């Protein structure tokens, strides 16, 4: 009995094996082994910052593409992209490292609250309803939609200022917070040499008087920085100054002339000669 059972089961197994082998050969889908290699090199965060659905999607796109134009993993940055370039033997366009920058410095102290929002703690919902708790309808709500979407624990609300602060070490410039912010306050900017950056930390488009009344740190659109800049990097539109980071040479001349301290400089060494004492000279903040 046992022998019959062994033989019959063995036979069935053998037939099945032959069938499966034949089927696997017939229906084989060829997958470029380089896709797996590229995927191995990628960070594996599946954050979607590259514009593809996850790292696997990006790897497939890289392998399938003729040139690497427009294909870049902002999370992995230059390191990862050079690895990908080695695997595929394709030239990779090395984008400059970027970092998320919060362009609002309307701290609780500078921006007095005029009403109280008691609805769902979500910036998207609050801004769909109204302008916000302060007189500035452009500024940060402080409910932390950017914090929620960050996959890298790189952005946090400072409980004192109620403004988000970016951890430069952790920020991968994936842009999730940029998309999540309903006020379009967060911008990806060039990280700059030694992480030195200068930017206008305000997005208020109101005229000077209402802007100033709503927030002591607001850009009032006076245009002093525009006149000061020797490189035409600063433009003034709708009562709001903007520094083009591709043109800015980091000379820092615009920073002390700003009457409200809306222009921030980051990671610069302290100024050697004492800057002329202007009322409201901005405080150099380490991380924002």
């Amino acid at each position, binding site marked *: 009995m046992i022998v019959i059972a062994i033989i019959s089961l063995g036979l069935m197994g053998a037939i099945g094996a032959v069938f499966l082998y034949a089927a696997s050969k017939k229906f084989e889908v060829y997958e470029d082994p380089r896709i797996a290699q590229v995927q191995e090199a990628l960070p594996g965060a599946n954050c979607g910052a590259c514009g593809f659905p996850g790292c696997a999607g990006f790897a497939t796109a890289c392998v399938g593409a003729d040139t690497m134009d427009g294909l870049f993993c902002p999370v992995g940055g230059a390191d990862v992209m050079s690895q990908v370039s080695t695997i595929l033997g394709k030239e990779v366009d090395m984008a400059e490292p970027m970092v998320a920058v919060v362009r609002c410095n309307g701290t609780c102290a500078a921006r007095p609250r005029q009403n109280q929002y008691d609805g*769902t703690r979500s910036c998207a*919902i609050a801004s*769909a309803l109204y*302008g916000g708790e302060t007189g500035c*309808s452009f500024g940060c709500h402080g409910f932390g939609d950017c914090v929620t979407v960050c996959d890298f624990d790189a952005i946090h609300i400072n409980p004192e200022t109620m403004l988000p602060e970016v951890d430069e070490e952790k920020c991968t410039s994936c842009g999730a917070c940029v998309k999540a912010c309903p006020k379009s306050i967060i911008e990806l900017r060039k990280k700059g040499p030694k992480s030195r950056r200068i930017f206008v930390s305000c997005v208020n488009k109101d005229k000077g008087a*209402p802007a100033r009344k709503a927030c002591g740190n607001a850009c009032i659109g006076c245009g002093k920085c525009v006149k000061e800049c020797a490189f035409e990097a600063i433009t003034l539109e709708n009562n709001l100054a903007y520094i083009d980071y591709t043109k800015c040479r980091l000379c820092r001349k615009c920073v002390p002339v700003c009457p409200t301290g809306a222009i921030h400089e980051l990671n610069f060494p302290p100024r050697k000669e004492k800057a002329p004492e202007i009322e409201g000279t901005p405080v150099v903040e380490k991380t924002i």
Partner: protein
Amino acid sequence: MLKTFRIGGIHPPENKLSAGKAIQSLALPKQVIIPLSQHIGAPAVAVVKKGDEVKVGSLIGQANGFVSANIHSSVSGKVNKIDNVLDASGYRRPAVFIDVEGDEWEEAIDRQEGFVKAFDLTSKEIIQKITDAGIVGLGGATFPTQVKLTPPPGNTAEILIINAAECEPYLTADHSLMMEKGNEIMTGISLLMKAVHVKKAVIGIENNKKDAIAHLQHLQSNYHGIEVMPLKVQYPQGGEKQLIDAVLRRQVKSGALPISVGAVVQNVGTAFAVYEAVVKNKPLFERIVTVTGKEVANPGNFKVRIGTSIQALIDAAGGLPEHTGKIIGGGPMMGKALASPEVPVTKGSSGVLLITEEEAKRKPVMPCIRCTKCVNVCPMGLNPTLLMTSTEFTNWDLAEKNHIADCIECGSCSYTCPSNRPLLDQIRLGKGKVMGIMRSRKA
């Protein structure tokens, strides 16, 4: 059995504190701030500049496009400036500031008190007068009236439905108007019937306004083709699609307009504005606003010029009560808390509700217990809890498939939820996103 809509609905406490109160005229303010966008659609373009003299009824904002509305001065005086002002939406929008001097009206406006019934105008002329007067739907949605009266090609109106349900708790503005201006409203309705070429009109009124029903029923014999229909007290009876279902037993398809079932719906306040515009040549520059609340000393219905501050209305009703938690523009169900009492009254302001700190308190949000109460009360037959979660998880495909764009934002789901979940907050956000996606797909 009184008629009502067939799906969902709730019955919140009515609290019509100012019912039966006569309409009081509010004193002229020192300055009015008239926003240039008081309607759905493109904002009007200012046609006055600083220093210009204007009279009551002068055109100050020209409609910009088909879906837009003219804006008129509500006072006489001098234009102080055109600047951005915080409006009820909580954002700064352009507005015309006018310093009041005297009360001089445009000559064309007939200021006689008497009621005029006779009119001899064609449909086109009526619609033109409505367009010129800048009339918008006064129920709160502020959709330009002339657009509704011009059905898209291929559609013909069969019936005019007048929305006098006033299903929002607390509000009594339409009620007081029906009591005092019955004949004018009936004439306005006749004009609207002529404008859209229909022989029949139905006025839908919730049965908690028995005096108004009796009053209009008494008048209806003098007007051909107008019927007064009492409706069950059920929120949101005044929703356009709900009202059509209640009156006609017809359901408007998802995404379709009421005209697809042959109905044109207008608010009763709009009918009165149409009477004034067509018969008296009076543009829309004042309206009735209910100021109410349990702690309010003197709740009432006030006739107020557009652009007056909400604060002036509150003062007229006896001032801000001590423990006010929120000032709500509109009714308690669909109204919105105002960021400041300094915002101006606009064409869409139907009420000002002052609720106490106790009433305004949000209850703690608990997890969903799958009780399906929200599903049962949704008057559009949607699944609110599913729509809320699909918004939370940004699953826009799922939200669209489940017709999030059909939500009328009545708030019945949030009202009924035993776990106090902010259903409408999330759904409104999701609806905006999904409608944006749908528009971009079309474009």
